[in-house]
């Protein structure tokens, strides 16, 4: 039987697998034993105990008496919030940079080139700390804040502006918005069906908008006492009230977007250059304008070579969001590190960090791969 190449191959594979499994087992037991010797406890029970630490800025409601697992979720929501915003902003800006770099206008292509070179050749940490320091180097102190509009100020404490506050139940506006959205979706679907059948597009959508606007006026009239304007006031040292954007969140958003847009710009440029010259000529021959050529021909074709490398850029955004704490914005990694420090459950904490980032990034990849399959050339 040893003469059989297939049998030998299977045996080699099995031996390798057994070896890896044995190695994993030994490492795990050695770790557990060493942890026990050093008095480091193992287990996930700490997740249900109160966190007892505060998080400065959160998307979800949080107080320090909440359990550790909720603190981790709140930290994750902070991370995902900046990741999603950065991915959206950097994709749009990156698209324009990529197109701009191919522009025949030397000013436009030069500026885009500078952006790309600065973003690609600067360590992200340096970029973030530099951006953050700009706040107090450039922006005035709270006492001398720049007034942009009535009640809207920008200072080293961030942007503070008036906010609409809602004192009634949130259910009413939520129900209203959901109904309006449903009507709009149904109307546009019906209009499309009708257009396919008859060749003419009926005014369903306009009617739906009109209906929504009418509904909104009635709604606002009915609830006019619930809406009020909260204007920030300067008290002692800072503006309070209204809606504010902190320098920390702004810095991580701008810094990470700037950095990522530089990379995405190059991917877009590469994708556009990969579109064959014949396609451009065909578009020109059809009499399409430059904007139309990009929108209808070049970008859809370029997407095929853009999406796969874009995938890894998006994953990098999620990973790079862990640098947010450098500029004082508490992300998932920071929250779990704090938890580790307070509970001494380092192994479990690190496992949670790894597991969550793996899950988030695999989900993101799956999403983009599905999209990639949709836009790929269909061969029949």
């Amino acid at each position, binding site marked *: 039987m040893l003469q059989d190449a297939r049998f030998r191959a299977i045996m*080699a594979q099995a031996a390798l697998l057994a070896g890896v499994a044995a190695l994993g087992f030994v490492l795990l037991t050695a770790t557990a034993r060493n942890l026990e010797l050093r008095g480091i406890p193992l287990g996930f029970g700490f997740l249900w105990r109160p966190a007892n630490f505060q998080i400065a800025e959160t998307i979800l409601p949080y107080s320090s008496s909440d359990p550790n697992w909720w603190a981790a979720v709140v930290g994750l929501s902070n991370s995902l919030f900046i990741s999603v915003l950065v991915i959206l902003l950097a994709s749009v800006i990156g698209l324009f940079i990529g197109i701009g770099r191919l522009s025949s206008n030397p000013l436009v292509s030069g500026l885009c080139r500078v952006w790309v070179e600065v973003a690609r050749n600067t360590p992200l940490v340096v970029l973030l700390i530099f951006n953050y320091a700009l706040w107090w180097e450039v922006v005035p102190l709270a006492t001398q804040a720049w007034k942009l509009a009535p009640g809207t100020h920008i200072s080293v404490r961030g942007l503070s502006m008036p906010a609409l506050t809602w004192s009634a139940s949130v259910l009413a506006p939520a129900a209203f918005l959901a109904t309006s959205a449903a009507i709009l979706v149904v109307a546009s679907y019906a209009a499309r069906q009708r257009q396919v059948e008859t060749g003419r597009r009926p005014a369903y959508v306009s009617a739906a908008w009109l209906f929504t606007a009418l509904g909104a006026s009635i709604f606002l009239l009915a609830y006019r006492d619930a809406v009020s304007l909260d204007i920030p006031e300067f008290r002692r040292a800072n503006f*309070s009230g209204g809606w504010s954007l902190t320098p920390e969140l702004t810095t991580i958003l701008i810094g990470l977007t700037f950095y990522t847009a530089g990379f995405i710009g190059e991917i877009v440029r590469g994708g556009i250059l990969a579109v064959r010259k014949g396609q451009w000529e065909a578009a020109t021959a059809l009499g399409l304008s430059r904007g139309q050529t990009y929108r209808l021909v070049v970008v859809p074709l370029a997407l095929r070579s853009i999406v796969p490398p874009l995938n890894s850029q998006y994953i990098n955004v999620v990973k790079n969001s862990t640098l947010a704490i450098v500029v004082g914005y508490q992300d998932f990694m920071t929250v779990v590190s704090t938890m580790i420090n307070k509970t001494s459950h380092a192994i479990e904490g690190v496992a949670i960090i790894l597991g969550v980032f793996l899950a988030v990034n695999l989900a993101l990849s799956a999403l983009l791969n599905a999209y990639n399959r949709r836009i790929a050339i269909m061969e029949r």
Partner: protein
Amino acid sequence: MKRVTQFAAAAAMVLIGAGSVNAQSITDKVRQRGYVSCGASQGVPGLSRPDDKGVWTGFDVDSCRAVAAAFFGDSQKAQFVPLNAAQRIPAVQTGEVDVLARTTTWTYTRDVAVRFVAINLVDGDAIMLRKSLNVGAAADLEGLTICLQGGGSLVENALDLIEQQNQVKVERVYFDSTILARDAYFGGRCDGYMSDGFAIAGQRAAVASNPDEHAIFQSGATTEPLALAIPRGDDRWFDIVRYAFNAMVWAEDRGITSKNVDEIAASATDGETRKALGVEPGIGEPLKLDDKWIYNVIKQVGNYGEVFARNLGEESPLKAERRLNALPRDGGILFPIPFK
């Protein structure tokens, strides 16, 4: 086949490595390595910070140098690893540092994870604020923004406590290093910068462009026993660190300084002093150290009073008072353990 052999060899090496992780004691490891690895802060003037030549100085640094002086007979055989608040305990647990001398509060939770050896400094929380804000009581903190190091530091808890006890609400901005928090405060991002009392005094004295602009508010919400910590599992190392520190306190109690130690060694008549300073043999034997180990600590690092004065007290820019960090006869809580 060659690949399989290589893999087997690699696996065997990993197995041997994994098996012997804990076989070596800290004392052996340090002796073999040739220097003491000390956990330090990321740069707190007066406590632990590299000077302009890159030499680490400060009160915590000297506490660790005392260990090097006792163990190697050379206070320079210590190297310093800057750690933030979240890194420090894991760094001790994993044995990355042999001694943690980094304003670390001795708590129950931490003491069952690492080993606290001796309280080297008693401190409380403090907030540096601009004088123009006129903060005289905790109630005046209402609505202010405070920059501080997050990551589970006890200063964070002190701020929570101040809020609860005084019914005030402050806004926080957390950083992963006290240095970034400090810079954000000096830049105007926050109204206050919070840390331990000595650290705050140091930052004001050494870093503020105009120290007179800043006031220090001490709420008294917490009293923190800051202590030296070591990894668990080596009683010998525990003894060495504890008594290296005690040598400094003992020397102050006996009036022995780095300047007069030779004189006193030559003229001493009482048995304890003569033995401790290595004039008579035997003091090093139980710890397997040189008989001159206490002498070396005093000669190279100094007694507690000298170390305090040099780094935090009258000879330093901080000009901090000793308060509880004094011998019982001076109203403090530093008890010298007799070398008998």
